[in-house]
Structure formats: C-alpha cells, structure tokens
C-alpha cells in the first residue's frame, strides 16, 4: 500500500474515532475509581438485589455524562439481557407533567408490545405507569429512567419527579432513576418532599487531570497494529506520536488550549482540526499540525477584516498617502464590524473625524490577528511591537 493511501486510511480512522464518543471514553473508564465503574456498580447492584435507587450525574456540558451512561447501559444489556428496560425522557421536551407521563406510557407500550392510546388521560397514564412498575417488579425486571436535563424537570410543581420517586418507595417496584444535569446544584432545586425521597447519590464528571489527558491522547491517536494498515507504518506512526506527546512544546500547546474550557468535547474538536491538517505526504502527525489548528479554532471573524485597521493606522502616520474618503470608508467599516466604537454617545453633528474612539478588541488579539494575516506589511508589525 502506498504511503499516501495508508495515510489517508489512517486519517479516516482517526477522524472516525474522534466522532465516536463511546470510543473516546473507554480508557477513562478502566480504573475502579472512575465514574463508569461506580455507575455500573450502582445499577447492577440494583438489578441483582431488586432494590430501588436514584442517582444524579453532574458536570459541565461536553464532559461525557451521556457517553459514559450509554457505555454502562450497553454493557449491562449484555450482562443481563432480559432484566432491564430503559425509558428516556428529556427536560427540554417533557418538562410538562402531562407530556412526560404520556411519553413514559408510550415507551412502556413499545417496550412491552402493548397498544398505546393517545386519548388516555393524565390519570390513566399515571395509573398505567404504577401498574407497569408493579408488573415489572414481580417479573424481576428493572426499569431504568434516564432523565436528561434534570434541572428542567425541577421547575413547576415537580409532579413527575415526586410520582417517580414515590413509586420507588414501595417495595413492589424495581426502578432506577438516573438524572443528568449540567447544574451542580440540581438537587437543591428539588422540593423538600422530593429531596427526601431522593437517595443523594451524585457522580461528578470533572475535567480530566493532566495524566489522564496524556493517556487519552495516546489512546485516541495511536493506530491499531492489527488492522488493514501496514504494520511498520503503524508502528512508526505510534513511535513518532509518543515522542510528540512527551514533548514540552506540545504539552504547552494543549494546556493553553484547555485553559479556557477543559471539557473533553472541546479537546475533541481541536484534535479533529489538528488531525485534518496531517500531511498526507509524510503520513505522520507533527507538532506543526497542532500549532496551526490552535489559532484556527480561536480565530474570530473580526480578525479577518484587519486590512481596514491597517489603512487607518497608515493614515495616522502618513496622512497624505491615502485619499480622505478612503479613510472615512475604512473607518466606517471598522465601526460596523465592531472593532472600534465611539466613546461618547453625543450627537452626530460633529464630524466623524474628530470623535474620540476606543478599541474594542484587546491588543493581544490584534497582535495575533496581524501575525496570522500573511500579507501584512512589515511597518505595521513594527508599529504593533513598538506599542506593545
């Protein structure tokens, strides 16, 4: 296989991996202290011991709560094939109690091959749910309720949460309620009755530590040795990858990127970009790929119109080089793009040239923008450096 073809295949493989959350979260789930094992332990002990449980998964968006939950459910389906049924609700769609009960009834009907009637009333649906829970309890089948955007269910009278958690207080039902939320104080939002019935288990999904990060990068970006790729290419790729991962400059780049948002999702987006820059000729990932990706992700659309700024600056230095109307037009463009704004809100009777103006973007951004603008004249760069 030619080098370029192998490289293309490797690229596709890597890009596919980066888009698949279940692959990404597997290595973080191997240790017994991880959230994966804790969650699995709680749910499987509820299934085997036939008792009820409730748990909250908390963490910022993009930290992998639903991904880990799906991994756990997938594994549990394999271990206990007929003993689990899953009902999924979302706070964005089903926060209204009527809607929620209807959806629960519908999913239960689909699961157990019953006929669902759209005309059933709220009362009927809630009775149906309690009856089904009892039936499933007698048949030793655990019903797992997954409530996404849990904090949205806690608005209003919280009737759904109360009914679910109350049904779990009786010995005839076998259910697990898993709430997923990005609000850390989600359990403080519950009414005191509902909170008393909730079992106060919380799993925090915190951003990965530096060691975990290294391990994660290694896991995602290493090529498998037993696939259709030529073996020596894969070995060389992995060796080069390990060298790069240990390099201080690479670590610095990654850490600077993660300084503003440390969730795994954020990292994956960056990796996708970087991997796409891989040079297909050589077929290896290099540090330059990552460095190029960094400003591309952080770039903002405003920096693309930096040409206007250049002309303004030039006019202040060499006022007779450009025609006046060109300057004014450039000035207006800058104002429209919100790179500058007038500091005073007084009337427009004064002519534009004499109104004080302030810069809306930071000087650091300006510098970065100018550096990435290829055809920037040297005089401008020198000016920026002098003023910095």
């Amino acid at each position: 296989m030619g080098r370029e073809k192998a490289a293309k295949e490797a690229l596709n493989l890597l890009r596919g991996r980066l888009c698949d959350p279940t692959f990404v979260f597997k290595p973080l789930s191997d240790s017994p202290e991880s959230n994966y094992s804790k969650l699995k332990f709680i749910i499987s002990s509820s299934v085997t011991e036939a008792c009820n449980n409730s748990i909250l998964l908390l963490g910022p968006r993009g930290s992998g709560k639903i991904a880990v939950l799906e991994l756990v459910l997938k594994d549990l389906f394999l271990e206990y094939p007929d003993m689990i049924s899953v009902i999924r609700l979302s706070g964005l769609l089903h926060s209204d109690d009527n809607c929620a009960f209807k959806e629960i009834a519908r999913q239960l009907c689909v699961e157990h091959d019953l006929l669902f009637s759209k005309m059933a009333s709220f009362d009927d649906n809630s009775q149906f749910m309690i009856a089904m829970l009892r039936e499933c309890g007698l048949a030793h089948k655990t019903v797992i309720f997954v409530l996404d955007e849990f904090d949205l269910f806690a608005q209003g009278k919280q009737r759904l949460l109360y009914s679910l958690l109350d049904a779990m207080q009786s010995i005839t039902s076998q259910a697990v309620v898993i709430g997923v939320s990005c609000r850390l104080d989600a359990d403080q939002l519950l009414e005191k009755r509902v909170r008393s019935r909730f079992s106060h288990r919380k799993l925090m999904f915190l951003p990965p530590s530096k060691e975990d990060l290294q391990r994660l990068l290694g896991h995602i970006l290493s090529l498998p040795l037993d696939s259709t790729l030529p073996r020596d290419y894969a070995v060389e790729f992995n060796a080069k990858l390990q060298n790069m991962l240990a390099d201080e400059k690479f670590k610095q780049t990654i850490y600077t990127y993660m300084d503003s948002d440390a969730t795994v999702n954020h990292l994956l987006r960056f990796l996708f970009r970087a991997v796409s820059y891989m040079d297909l000729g050589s077929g290896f990932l290099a540090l330059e790929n990552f460095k190029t990706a960094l400003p591309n992700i952080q770039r903002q659309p405003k920096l693309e119109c930096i040409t206007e700024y250049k002309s303004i600056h030039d006019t202040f230095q060499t006022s007779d080089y450009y025609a006046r109307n060109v300057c004014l037009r450039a000035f207006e463009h800058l104002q429209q793009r919100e790179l500058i704004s007038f500091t005073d809100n007084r009337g427009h009777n004064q002519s534009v040239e004499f109104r004080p103006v302030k810069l809306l973007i930071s000087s650091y951004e300006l510098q970065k923008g100018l550096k990435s603008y290829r055809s920037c004249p040297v005089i401008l760069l020198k000016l920026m450096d002098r003023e910095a």
Partner: protein
Amino acid sequence: MPTIARSNGDSTPQKRRLRSDAEAKDSPISTTVKWKSPRGCSSASPNSLSNGTERDFSDNPERSPVKKNFGKFISKPKWNPGDTEQMREVKEALHVSTAPSTVVCREDEQKRVLEFCKVCVEQEKAGSLYVCGCPGTGKSLSMEKLKQLLVDWAKEAGHRQPDVLPINCTSLAKTSDIFVKILGDAQQRRKVNGSATSALQHLQNLYSQNPRSSRIKMMLIIVDELDYLITKDRAVLHDLFMLTTFPFSRCILIGIANAIDLADRFLPRLQSLNCKPMVVTFRAYDKDQILKILRERLSALPYIVFQPQALELCARKVAAASGDMRRALCVCRSAIEILEAELKESSSNFNSLTVEKACFEQQTATAPDILKKQDIDVVRLDHMAIALSKTYRTPIVDTIQSLPQHQQILLCSAVKHFRGGKKDTTVGELKKSYMDICKSSLIPPVGSLELSTICRVLNDQGLLKLGQSRDDKSKRVTLRVDEADVTFALQGIRFFRNCLQ
C-alpha cells in the same frame, strides 16, 4: 468535616440495646419470618407478630437487671460482608421501602389518631384531623398501619367496618377531581356525569339527608400531600373539610402535609363553625429515636453489621441536620457500599500479594498475616464518616478547583466586583474587570467571544446567573455561589490568593 464525638457512656442506650438483644434471643424464629420480603412470604401477618413483640416488650421490664447484663455477654456474631446472601439481607433491612411491622417511636401519635378514629366510628359521627410534619418523619407510614388497625378494631368491637380511601393529591389532574374520587367509591352504582361541581353537590346533598346517608358505611379518607389542593381561592380545600361539618356526614377525613400551620392559614372559617380539624404534629426525629429505629431494623438480623459508635454518629449527624429517617437509612446503606468497595480492593491486593509471594520464595509470608489483622467485618466509624460527608457535602468547592484557569479568573473577577455590596452587574462590566486582572498579571486574556462562552458555561453550572437580553453585553449577571466558597476553593493557588485579597 464531621466531628467524631464519643458519647459519655450513658446508660440509656445500653438498656435499649439489651432489650433488643434479649428480644432477638427470645424469639429468633418469629423475627426471621418477619423480615422476608412480602413477595415471597405469605404466612406473616402483621397482627400476630406485633402482638408477639408487644408481649416480649412487656415481659422484659420484669426481668432483673442482673439477668439483663448476662444477656449482653451472649452477643451476636459479626457478619461476613463477602457473603452475598447476607449482604442482600442487610441492604433490604435498611431499604427505605421495607416497611417494618411495628412503627417504632410513633406510638403516641398513632394512639392519638387511632382514638380519634375509634370515637368517630363508635358514634358514627364525622370528623377531621390534620397530620403535619417534615418529610421523612413517618406520617404516611403510620397512616398505612392505622388503616389496618382501625379495620381490625372495628371488627373485634362489633361496629360496622369503615371503608378506607387513600388519595394522593399529586395524582389528581384537577384539584376538584378529589370529589369525584370520594363519590366514586361511595356510590358505585350511580354514574356521575363527570362534572366536578355536580360531584361536590351530590356529596353535599347526600350528607344533608338522613335516610339516605345512614345506609352508607363510615368512610376513612386519607388525603396525602394536602397542599397540592391549595388553589388561589382555596375553595377545594375548604369544601373538602366542610364536608365533615354536614349534619349527616359519613366521612372521617385525615389530611397529611408538611406545613404546620396549614389549618390555621387556609381554613379560618372552620374555626367559626367550631369544627377546626385536630392537629397531630409528627416532630422530626431526634438522635435517640433515629438510633432506636435503626437498631430495631437491624435487630432482626442474626449478626452484627455496624460498630455501635458508627450508628451513633449517623444518628447524631442526621438528627442535627434534618431529622429525616430516609436520610439516615440512605447514609447507612452508603456506608455498607463503602465497606463493600474496600473489601473488593483489599481482596484484589491480597491476590496480587499472593502472586508476588509465589515469585519471591525467600520472603517470609508476613503479608497475609497483616491482611488478616485488618479483617473487614463490621462497618466502622471511618466508613460512616465518609458516607456522611458524601451525603452532606456540596460539590461546589471541588468543581471550582477543577475549573480551567480562565474560568477561575472570571469567577474571581466576579467576586471582586461584587465585593463592594453591589448585587448585580452586566456582562460588559464583568468582561472589563476580567481584562483588568489579566492585564495587571500579564496573562494573555481570551477573546470576547470565548468570554461569552465562558459566561454561559458558568451559568449552566449554576455558579453565575445570567439574565436575558438581546445584546450580549447588557445581560445582567449575579453571583450564585458564596464568596467564602470561592476563596476557600482557590486558596491553594498564590495568584488567586493575591487577587482576592
């Protein structure tokens, strides 16, 4: 941090433990039957068992204290956490949904309610009662027991057995449906056309006419979560309690809710009619009561599961916080799980050590001896302390510590901004403070778009609160966490320490 305070060895808890030990010794057979799950067991009936335990309770005080002390030395063996059957039994005994056959520590309240109902049934008179108390204090549980007790008493005493109708107000689609439910039970043959006013009127007519109503049995209506019936005009609640004031009313109404002053606030008219409901308050459990209930649950098991100090710590903490029995049971189960995890970890360590031992023959086998000394048998004080801190801790400090740097800087700038006593500000102002901090400490700031994203992420997590506005800059921002929490969380980093001074 939970404080591990020891009790001064007072005598009262000793005596209680002895009583339960002696009871277990006396009647091992009946107690094991008591704890089988209701699905599997058909022969256990609450009445015979409760009578049995009552007799035991009455027997014990007559024994001499010397004999009691003797009983203490014949203590139960410790349990084996590795045995899955035992583990399952213990977890079931401590589960919230396992209802014990006698409701301990609520005898007074139950007696009051039972006496009231007995009088009503005897005289075939209507009445209303209001049960109130914090969540987790045993109200619904006691009412469950009461139903059976009342029916049995009526049968024994030769009165007409009352009908029982439990209603939970959260299951009502409309508040006025409660009358349909009451009527539906009393008049099976008649078909009401479903409109609520006619259901209420029907009931009112029924209870005002003597000949029709005397044929109906007394009805015990237990209304749980009464405050869901409170509407703006309070009509439904009023009408419900007014039903008991009709001359020929047949209902005994028991309302359950959390608010202590519900009767005073929402039913003032009843006082003028001189039929305000009797109020029975279920106070929050105190430390001794929680301890007693926990021991009662564990007394049926033939082995010791908890170290006694661990149970005391749990009872003390939960009583100080809320007095909620569900919380206490949850904490105990959590402590057992921690023990289980420790067991698993130590067994894997043991396995790896035996492998090592096989490899290095010359080393004497001191490792297994050490492990034997740390035999994991009962739930100790440290397990309970970890379980308590997990339940009562807020994740705020951990989360702030694990935030990425720029998010922490923004949070700090918010704290500094709000120090002067201001309550809220705009996103634009916040961004300015952020820029100032970055400039003064020579950290390159992030761009404006990213700052908005950071604000949104902090809002999602519940650390800041963002208002609504078309323009991003003029959204109002308030801080949702305590300044002290932020300072405490970030005190380990010098930059933030200086920043927040």
